[in-house]
């Protein structure tokens, strides 16, 4: 009993550290309440959502300097760790969440779907993702992941009457829950092996080779089994081959803006947790080769992911499906950064990818029309004639996804490949370079169809909704900013590297 009391005395309630989450939760609830009111006004709800995200962004920004001086802030008995790593991911989630709100407004309105619930689900999902990125404890990763997942299940099936949306949600739900079960099993076994569920504790246990609870050596088989199970769970969440099969179906069926959210924020969150556990806890040189085991197996997975994602994308006719395969391929590239133990590279890559992708999906939301009925690549025919602006925007974003220089995509790939090459993952990097050369073929197809294909019969499209416009403009600006002068961001992340190392 005494030990328990001692444990409770280290309780450190620090609301400042979790302000961004608190703000988002409160504004999520506020949007929900507005939505329940009679005759809810769209604009009001959008405003609340935007203000919520902006305030959360401000709160995150205000944490940056304190973290810089302290190195990291731990709160709630090590449940959350606020360091530059988590803040960086907070920014990604906030930006993506905000842009998701912006691109969703028009489709919700056009299809008369409930707005308040949608917004609040997005915001809660972002809270969950933040918890994942800032987790200092396995239970936080689990809860964050579930919050993010359950809201995306609901979002994927948001178009209740649409068979494809239903199907997408069910597939996502069934397979996602199964993967969560694997992840959870992995957590349980690692907890048993190391005697701690805190990331710090796990790390110490592995380094010292002492089970925190029993004071005996760490049980290797248990540890490996747990790590393997967790690897499976995370690989599913980042949609790496062979756990990727759900991705195209789910991405195709879900409403486009939800797909955008899943393809960017969910993936980034999964990577954040992946990094936290594998790079932070399973460090090289300890645990009887645990590090080499997970890097080699992830290297294989990354190679397979890049090959399968890119090649399968070649023959797609549906734009969303093509982008789904492309997102699988991109997960492969990010994994290449992950095996190089370089969180900066992965995080930067995810930022570039997310920024670009959200713009591309924003355009799809607009082009696909009501109910996402025109998502075939051929539906883009003649876009270059009747809407040069939109098609040039799409061109830029696709070029960035393909990794053409001067765009964010190139810079992200470059950083990741460089990191991996320096760590000696030559095969993976060569495969990455070859497959990204191949990827140009399928990104080329929409361009060809937009610019060099006859005009389709009905060129009638509604005016571009403001939200989509803003998103696309921001996304293109971001693409060029990150592609042309990422210097300051790199500098910031260089500094962050120091703080992350200190936290070890």
């Amino acid at each position, binding site marked *: *009993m005494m*030990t*328990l*009391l001692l*444990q*409770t005395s280290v*309780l450190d*309630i620090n609301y400042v550290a*979790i302000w961004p989450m608190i703000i988002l*939760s409160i504004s999520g*609830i506020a949007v*929900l309440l507005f939505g329940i009111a009679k005759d809810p006004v769209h604009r009001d709800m959008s405003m609340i959502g935007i203000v919520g995200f902006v305030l959360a962004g401000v709160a995150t920004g205000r944490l940056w300097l304190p973290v810089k001086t302290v190195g990291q802030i731990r*709160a*709630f*008995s090590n*449940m*959350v760790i606020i360091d530059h790593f988590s803040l960086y991911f907070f920014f990604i989630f906030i930006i993506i969440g905000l842009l998701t709100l912006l691109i969703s407004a028009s489709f919700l309105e*056009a*299809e*008369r*779907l*409930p707005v308040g*619930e*949608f917004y*609040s*689900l997005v915001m*809660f*999902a972002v*809270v*969950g993702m933040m*918890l994942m990125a800032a987790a200092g*404890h396995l*239970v*936080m990763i689990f*809860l*964050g992941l*579930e*919050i993010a997942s*359950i*809201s995306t*299940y*609901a979002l994927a*099936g*948001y178009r*209740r*009457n649409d068979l494809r949306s239903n199907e997408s*949600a069910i597939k996502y739900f069934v397979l996602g829950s199964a993967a969560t079960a694997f992840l959870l099993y992995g957590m349980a*076994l690692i907890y048993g092996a190391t005697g701690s569920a805190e990331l710090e504790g796990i790390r110490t246990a592995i380094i010292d080779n002492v*089970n925190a*609870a*029993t004071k*005996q050596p760490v*049980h290797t*088989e*248990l540890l*490996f*089994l747990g790590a393997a199970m967790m690897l499976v769970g995370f690989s599913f969440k980042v949609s790496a081959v062979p756990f990727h099969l759900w991705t195209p179906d789910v991405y195709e069926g879900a409403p486009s803006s939800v797909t955008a959210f899943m393809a960017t924020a969910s993936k980034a969150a999964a990577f954040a947790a992946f990094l936290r556990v594998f790079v932070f806890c399973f460090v090289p040189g300890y645990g009887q080769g645990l590090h080499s085991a997970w890097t080699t197996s992830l290297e294989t997975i990354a190679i397979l992911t890049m090959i399968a994602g890119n090649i399968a994308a070649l023959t797609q006719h549906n734009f969303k499906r093509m982008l789904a395969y492309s997102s699988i391929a991109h997960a492969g590239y990010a994994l290449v950064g992950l095996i190089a133990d370089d969180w900066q590279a992965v995080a930067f890559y995810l930022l570039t990818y997310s920024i670009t992708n959200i713009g591309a999906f924003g355009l799809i939301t607009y082009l696909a029309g*009501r*109910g996402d*009925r025109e998502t075939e690549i051929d539906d883009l025919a003649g876009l270059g004639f009747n809407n040069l602006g939109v098609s040039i925007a799409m061109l830029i974003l696709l070029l960035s996804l393909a990794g053409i220089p001067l765009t964010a995509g190139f810079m992200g790939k470059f950083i990741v490949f460089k990191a991996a090459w320096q760590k000696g993952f030559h095969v993976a990097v060569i495969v990455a370079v070859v497959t990204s050369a191949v990827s140009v073929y399928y990104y080329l197809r929409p361009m060809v169809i937009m610019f060099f294909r006859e005009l389709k019969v009905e060129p009638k499209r509604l005016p571009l909704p403001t939200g989509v416009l803003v998103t696309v403009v921001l996304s293109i600006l971001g693409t060029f900013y990150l592609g042309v002068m990422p210097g300051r961001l790199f500098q910031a992340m260089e500094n962050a590297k120091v703080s992350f190392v200190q936290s070890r």
Partner: protein
Amino acid sequence: MEKVLFLILAGISVAAAINVIFQRNTLYSAFSLIAVFGCLAALYVMLQAQLIAALQIIVYAGAIMVLFVFVIMLLNIRQEEEQKDRYHLYYLSLPIGVLLALEVYYGLSNIQDVSVPGAAVGNAESLGQGLFSTYLLPFEVTSILILLAIVGAVVLARKERDIPLEMLDALEAEQAKNKQSGKSEGKENN
């Protein structure tokens, strides 16, 4: 004595779990699952986790499974679809299941028993202590989880007031037409 009890409970739970899988009647599957949960609760008691055992009965068997059974009854699906499984995935169950079990067993096989000195943990008091101290944040976070689950469930299952897309299209076309005709009339007037 304890070992015998364990073996009996384990046997029942495994048998019930197998029944969950191979039972064609969904309702019976659900009942078998409740049996598994019951056995697990008993095992938790053996592990001196009384509170968890109680929660297992109350939450799992009591709440969650009732929800399942309720939905099964609501949708009136007594039988699993009658026609045969076209894909014969049954046959895959054996190799995959055996392999997975073997692998996990290999991982767990040589685990030694540990005895950490100290009193057993798991009574309501210690759990409550933990829940409101170390686990305060996760505990709070679950409230968001539950809230969003409610929101999600309501959004997905609410009785529809959605308008089919085709109707929306037609509606819009009509509006546009009205607008246009209004415009042209206006022009004529001018």
